[in-house]
């Protein structure tokens, strides 16, 4: 089976005046459908840069990135916008909700850009908010919600268009441990429904929720291994295959 994400020798160069900086120095990586991956690494190592490229928000300076077999390097701006809209759900550390509109309208946004009708939008946005447990907070504006609730709104927004790939850049970074764990339960649930999930995190406990852990250092992949959970699951599937 073809991997969902195929990254080959991707580099990202930032030029600031005379200074040149490689945020990514040649990353190669395959991620399959329905994997649950955590990306870890010190600050400034290039995690967000990699996530932005995977999420089609940014393009690599060199190297190749294929999503679903399609070469992202060659895509026009509008095509990238459509992929961000339909295939990818992004969850940010700072939530990135629009402050002036309520939770429901925030969740509606991706549906507006995919051209859905008002009725359908409301219905989908409501059920997405119910899924993250916010049925009684739909008409609240972001500043009337707690941090955890805001992140739930952001997750509902990421999920509302039914994307296959969920990207979360430090989704628990601004939350306390307990709220963070609640959010991780949501991700676990999404994974079990068949989504592919990639999260960036600093925290070992959070990373242990994923099944595969990729460590980045200085713009290069330093390590790529299965977590305890991942080993368990791998074990299970193996046994299943044997018993069949």
């Amino acid at each position: 089976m073809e991997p969902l994400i195929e990254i080959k020798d991707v580099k990202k160069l930032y030029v600031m005046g005379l200074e040149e900086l490689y945020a990514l120095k040649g990353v190669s990586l395959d991620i399959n459908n329905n994997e649950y991956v955590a990306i870890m690494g010190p600050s400034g190592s290039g995690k967000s840069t990699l996530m932005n490229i995977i999420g089609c928000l940014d393009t690599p300076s060199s190297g190749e990135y294929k999503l679903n077999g399609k070469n992202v390097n060659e895509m026009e701006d509008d095509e990238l916008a459509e992929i961000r809209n339909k295939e990818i759900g992004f969850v940010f550390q700072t939530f990135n909700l629009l402050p002036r509109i309520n939770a429901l309208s925030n969740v509606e946004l991706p549906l507006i850009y995919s051209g859905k009708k008002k009725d359908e939008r409301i219905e989908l946005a409501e059920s997405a908010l119910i899924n993250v447990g916010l049925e009684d907070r739909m008409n609240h504006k972001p500043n009337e919600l707690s941090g955890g609730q805001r992140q739930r709104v952001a997750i509902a927004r990421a999920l509302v268009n039914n994307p296959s790939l969920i990207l979360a850049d430090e989704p628990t970074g601004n939350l306390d441990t307990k709220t963070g764990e609640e959010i991780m339960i949501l991700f676990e649930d999404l994974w079990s429904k068949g989504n592919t999930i990639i999260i960036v995190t600093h925290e070992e406990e959070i990373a242990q929720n994923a099944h595969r852990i990729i460590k980045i250092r200085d713009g290069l992949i330093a390590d790529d291994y299965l977590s305890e959970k991942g080993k368990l699951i791998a074990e299970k599937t193996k046994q299943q295959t044997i018993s069949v």
Partner: protein
Amino acid sequence: MKFFSEIKENIAISYQAINSNKLRSLLATLGIVIGITAVTLMQTAIEGINLAFEKSIAAVGADVLYVQKFEWFGTEDWSFYKNRKELTMEQYDFLNKNSQTSTVMAPSTGVTRTVKFKDLSLQNVFVLGTTFEYQEVSGFNMIEGRYFTQRESDGGYPVCVIGTDISDAFFENTDPIGKTIKVGNYNFRIIGVIEKQGSLLGLFSLDNRIIIPLERFFNVFGDKRGLTFNIKAADINNVDETKEEVRWIMRKARKVPYGSADDFGLNAQEAFKSTYESLTGLIKVIGTMITGLSLIVGSIGIANIMFVSVKERTKEVGIRKALGARRSTILSQFLIESSMICLMGGFIGLLIAFPISLIIDAFVLPTAMPLWIVVLALFISLMFGLLAGFFPAYTAAKMDPVDSLRYE
């Protein structure tokens, strides 16, 4: 389909943005408000003055030609005109016999005299001597009595019809018909009163007139006065044809040698119009340009605010792009926002201009605000909105999503 739903959504988004920033939007559009108020007032004034002008020359008649010794608005030196001879009744008869493209014509002449009734008197009344055809040429109606008949006209009967100024002055409470008035030293019996006609260009009252049979006029006031030939063209849409015909017949009647200029004036309402237009045209253009300038200043204000607004909402643009908004969507969002702000300004401008135009109309000048001015004002505001919003919207559209998401 997609295009329209996108515009619809962007209108909703812009409404949101404007609504949550009411005061700023209002201040931003102040320039447009002032601009549209100024442009609209200017246009209503121009329109009003035009209408007033048309009304004031209506009595001249759009389909009536006046052959006279002089042009109304001659532009040559006096030496060019000084040897001209008066028009004569022989020339009139020749013209009347030969003209094919006119329905009816009448010769006329006039003097000013003092008019008396019992111990009341009016000075400087215009006494017009003409024939029975004159009413048809001129097209006025009688409010009392009747106009004189061919028999009275040809026979030079001492009868007259009077304007409303005279009937108001002499016969406030009595019936003027049948009364005898003294025009100069001669008695005339009143047989009719002409409906109120107003004045020509607001200067020369057409109601301060007495009309008597031309024959009588010649008898009592002499027949050496210059004549005017009043000619009604057969086709109001083809007055020029009649004009040319009359010109050639008159040249023949007056024996003007081939190749030399006419020695008479061939006048029509149009002469007023072209003179009016040459006098007011430049004023209108300059007025429109000056008021238009205020719109340009106003739209610079909008552009300025839109730049600030786009900068402030960099993060919003980043979020929208991350969620799948295309460049064109962002472009149209901000274009629509600036157009809506300008439209709002235009609308407020109209709301301000309308009562002001009524006040001006009541106290200063006639004004008129037809629908086309309203539509044009809103259209102009929309255009300026698009113009002012374009560069800010373009900056927003081409923002890099990652950079704008990082923006604080």
